């Protein structure tokens, strides 16, 4: 085998098919306001927002190895950023979401300076503590409604559409575009030099650094990007709800625990895993939500079963078993006769 008789590629027939499939899905969802009723739109909005959170958490944990259980900090900050800007500036809410996300991303840098001193479980716990501190702080600031929270000013809601139906469509499209941007952001980061560094750090940090990888900078990039995306998603979640309180905005169970569930059952550290996990979660929720406490018990049971029998998650299992790669993220070396 000679090096000039081979070439490196990320593409294969499977990845081409997968990209076509992704394109078809994107078209179907983009046109949903034309064919779907209000209930389906709301469900899909919900799904897109949760899927965004799941992909972001997976990016942070599965790729950068930063096990955070405090991502609700950024959901809450994004939500409060939107409501505060809407109350005090009267900007279009979507513009407010964007501005708030940029501010939150900037804020995440000092957070990182604080949290990055800690590793592993200590990092996880302190990320949670940070979110709790933010929740408690929000309760004590009367300008943002204290513990009773605040509502989105009626003019801000109207800016998205005079009729609720129009508003839902706007938020749906915003959530869909946000998801597309988050997914492609993660995808292109993983394909880049930074992506290579991330996988190397995940496998062996000292070896990665010994081969020239700036581990801290790489992790910081992921942390800040994730904060940005999570804040934007948080803004959109609460834009749909029209009301925000410290407890709902900084909720660990809603914005981190359920998200962990999705990522873990789907497969941590794979691009496709969180997508599968989110679909499965919404199917389970749709079929079991009427059974009250039984719903949470069965979610727990599913999570435990998968942890025991399939610690790499459903997608991790499928990928390892059939050597499947849907998205062109990993290189294959082909000899030129084959290709």
């Amino acid at each position, binding site marked *: *085998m*000679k*090096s000039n008789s*081979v070439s*490196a590629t990320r593409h294969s027939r499977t990845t081409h098919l997968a990209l076509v499939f992704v394109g078809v899905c994107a078209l179907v969802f983009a046109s949903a306001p034309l064919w779907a009723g209000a209930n389906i739109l709301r469900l899909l909005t919900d799904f897109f927002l949760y899927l965004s959170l799941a992909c972001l958490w997976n990016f942070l944990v599965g790729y950068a190895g930063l096990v955070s259980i405090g991502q609700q900090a950024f959901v809450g900050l994004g939500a409060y950023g939107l409501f505060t800007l809407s109350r005090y500036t009267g900007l279009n809410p979507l513009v407010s979401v964007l501005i708030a996300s940029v501010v939150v991303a900037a804020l995440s840098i000092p957070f990182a300076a604080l949290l990055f001193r800690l590793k592993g479980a200590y990092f996880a716990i302190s990320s949670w503590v940070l979110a709790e501190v933010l929740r408690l702080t929000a309760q004590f600031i009367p300008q943002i409604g204290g513990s009773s929270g605040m509502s989105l000013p009626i003019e801000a809601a109207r800016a998205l559409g005079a009729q609720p139906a129009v508003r839902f469509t706007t938020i749906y499209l915003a959530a869909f575009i946000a998801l597309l941007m988050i997914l492609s952001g993660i995808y292109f980061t993983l394909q880049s*030099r930074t992506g*290579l*560094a991330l*996988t*190397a750090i*995940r*496998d*062996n940090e*000292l*070896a*990665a*650094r*010994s*081969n*020239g*990888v*700036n*581990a801290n900078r790489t992790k910081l990039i992921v942390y800040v990007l994730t904060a940005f995306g999570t804040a934007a998603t948080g803004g959109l979640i609460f834009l749909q709800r029209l009301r925000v309180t410290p407890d709902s905005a900084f909720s660990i169970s809603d914005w981190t625990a359920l998200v962990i569930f999705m990522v873990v059952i789907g497969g941590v550290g794979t691009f496709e895993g969180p997508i599968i996990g989110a679909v499965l979660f919404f199917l389970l929720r749709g079929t079991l939500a009427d059974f009250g406490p039984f719903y949470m018990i069965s979610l727990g049971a599913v999570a435990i079963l998968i942890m025991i029998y399939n610690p790499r998650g459903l997608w991790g299992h499928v990928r390892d078993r059939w050597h499947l790669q849907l998205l062109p993220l*990993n*290189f*294959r*070396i082909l000899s030129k006769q084959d290709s």
Partner: protein
Amino acid sequence: MAAILALRALTKSFGAITIARDLNLEIQEGEAVGILGPNGAGKTTILALMTGALRPDNGSIEYEGLDIRGMSVEERCRLGMARAFQIPQPFGGMTVFENVMVAARHGAGLNAKEAQAISLELLERSGLLPFANLAAGKLTLLNRKRLELTRALATKPKVLLLDEIAGGLSQLESEDLINLILQVKESGVTIVWIEHVLHALLSVVSRTLVLYQGNFIADGDPHKVLADPKVSEIYMGIEVDG
């Protein structure tokens, strides 16, 4: 000629154990230096001090005349210091090719296209090309060692630090590695090599140091160093078969 790598009055101890006591060493560009010493003498620690994985208690380390004490492992790597670990440290979940790509893109700072070309070329030279698509965690010991060396070379080093790269391999197995190291040496790369497998070491290095109780007790022509009674006393029982 200025030294490419110099240790100046370097001191490092772990509790009561002194690894380096006022250690001085100058290595010239293009030199191939072997470091010997009994187990536990601190040879690996010396390499770790050079690459920045450990910090000295005192003294300084100069690289191309620059004091690099304050630099991180990754900065030193980018300046041209590459280390192949004693126990190979592959990125187990990545393919062999991707392992080398990490070094080419981050260590050598090449763009994607250049990095791919150099990675494939190095894989061919080290005989790993047929394994390019294999997860690095699934390689055999010999191939892990090859990968460790290939990856270090992909950072485009000026100084290559080798830690017992021939250890655990049969003579036949280590021959390929030695040939590759000889090629690297001929291309002008400075080599610092810790090794117990003397025949491997002696076929490459032109200068040997012996580290013992925090000092270099011998320095010079490898065969003369090994013939030194002080050295044979420390190395009692080890036969020189090079």
